[in-house]
């Protein structure tokens, strides 16, 4: 699923380790200070400042790792990578350390300016690298989005051409023949007309399905929850929906979330042999989370057409799609879509 573990037990262990580290460092510092006072008195050269400085640095680095890896999402939101956050932290700690060394060594010419300057230059280069990677990433997504739009349009064009358009042509032929037959063969004409009527019904049904595949009217009318309950009405499998949506997200986000659920329900019914599906909708301040779980046999084709299309749709909105479908199930499809207030 491409995620860093967020198991709370792991967090707790890491924090306990840090507390132990702090206690040992503090204890050692106190011991050193006592030795110093006992052996040479409080007004002599404070040599324990050196080991204590290194203890402090080790603690700071430990703390930094804890903060950076505890919540990787925090950096992503600020357009930072975890690597850059780490680099920034190390640079700040090292700067503080050289400044402390300068103070301990009797001040004078502020030589730490040079190491600090070099840290800053390295940081700036790293930041440029992060930005260029982000631009590259956005370029890929943009071309994906354009390609997706193009393939959607071609599909619609093909569906119209082979479906409704062809039916209308056949209908016109039927009606033309009926017109010819009216005088000579009224029964034959009546048969052709009633066939034509059935043809119109089929064409309308095809158009309806096509429209539903582009953007279902109920989604525009009543929003995501109503549209999903309409999908549920049409699903052959029992679906349980739990929704925590306080306010309507933007249209593109709603549409993407709808198609995540639609595709997941279709897959579960078609391939997974599932008996039960759970849909979870959750809206926080700036994300819409959609999760669909089925109790089927798993093994969904992540590289297949459907899921690839979904991923593109979600990523075009700067969201993330996670799919877990081990053989034997269950299948979990989760989309996280950023949406403003």
């Amino acid at each position, binding site marked *: 699923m491409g995620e860093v573990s967020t198991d709370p037990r792991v967090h707790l262990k890491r924090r306990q380790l840090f507390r132990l580290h702090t206690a040992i460092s503090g204890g050692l510092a106190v011991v050193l200070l006592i030795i110093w006072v006992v052996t040479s008195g409080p007004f002599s050269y404070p040599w324990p400042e050196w080991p204590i400085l290194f203890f402090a640095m080790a603690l700071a680095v430990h703390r930094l790792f804890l903060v950076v890896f505890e919540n990787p999402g925090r950096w992503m939101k600020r357009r930072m990578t975890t690597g850059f956050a780490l680099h920034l932290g190390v640079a700040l700690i090292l700067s503080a350390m050289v400044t402390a060394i300068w103070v301990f060594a009797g001040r004078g010419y502020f030589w730490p300016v040079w190491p600090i300057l070099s840290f800053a230059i390295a940081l700036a280069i790293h930041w440029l690298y992060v930005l260029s990677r982000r631009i590259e990433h956005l370029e890929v997504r943009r071309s994906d989005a354009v390609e997706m739009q193009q393939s959607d349009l071609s599909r619609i064009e093909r569906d119209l051409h082979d479906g409704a358009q062809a039916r209308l042509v056949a209908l016109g032929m039927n009606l033309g023949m009926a017109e010819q037959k009216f005088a000579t063969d009224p029964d034959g004409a009546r048969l052709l007309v009633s066939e034509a*009527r059935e043809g119109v019904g089929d064409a*309308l049904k095809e158009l309806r399905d096509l*429209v539903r595949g582009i953007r279902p*009217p109920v989604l525009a009318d*009543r929003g995501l929850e109503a549209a999903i309950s*309409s999908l549920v009405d049409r699903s052959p499998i029992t679906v349980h929906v739990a929704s925590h949506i306080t306010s309507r997200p933007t249209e593109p986000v709603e549409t993407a979330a709808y198609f995540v659920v639609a595709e997941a329900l279709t897959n579960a019914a078609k391939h997974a042999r599932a008996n039960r599906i759970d849909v979870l909708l959750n809206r926080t301040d700036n994300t819409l989370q959609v999760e669909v779980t089925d109790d089927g046999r798993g093994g969904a084709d992540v590289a297949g057409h459907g899921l690839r299309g979904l991923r593109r749709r979600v990523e075009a909105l700067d969201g993330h799609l996670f799919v877990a479908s081990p053989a034997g199930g269950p299948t979990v499809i989760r989309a996280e879509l950023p949406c403003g207030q």
Partner: protein
Amino acid sequence: MRAVIAEDLALLRDGLTRLLRDNGIDVIAAVDNPTDLITTVEREQPEIAIVDIRLPPTFRDEGLRAAIELRQSAPETSILVVSQYVERSYAAELLADGRGGIGYLLKDRIFDVAAFVDSVRRVAAGGTALDPEVVAQLVSRRRPGGALDRLTPREQEVLALMAEGKSNAGLAEKLVLSTGAIEKHIANIFTKLDLVASSNEHRRVLAVLAHLNSQANDI
């Protein structure tokens, strides 16, 4: 019989007007927006208003909202909602007040002119007309092992046609059975679903719809 039509597309508005007039229904007004629909119906009190769901200004569900408003403000007028697509939840909203004189059909059903005119007359007379597609959704959304599973296949067939609003005579014709046999099936259905039977055909249909709706909403 007097009717009002609300449909925003002129092509369909004129077509429907002609179709109804050809079948002896007096179309007293054909409007293209919900505001005119509400004022006309409240003023003229026709037997029926035929309303498209998608109306201006936003072309979403204004027609449906106007229809629900008219159920309150003009209870004497029956309403038949027609649309290019049907949703079970919209049907539930229209049926929510438990009264008859309501219909909800796909526009496709207009092609079978005789059946459509029959639906219009039935709804105008206080009956119901529910699209088979909605009925299929209602019947398919049931609890496994629930009351509906106790019905025989024939009874389920009768139930679905009843939910569409068909009269007993219509059911008998469609299933090629005597009205007596139909009555017997209906009595069995009401016993199995634990519903109170009524001698009024419309009321029996409403009881069946209320049952199906509550089943579907429970899941």
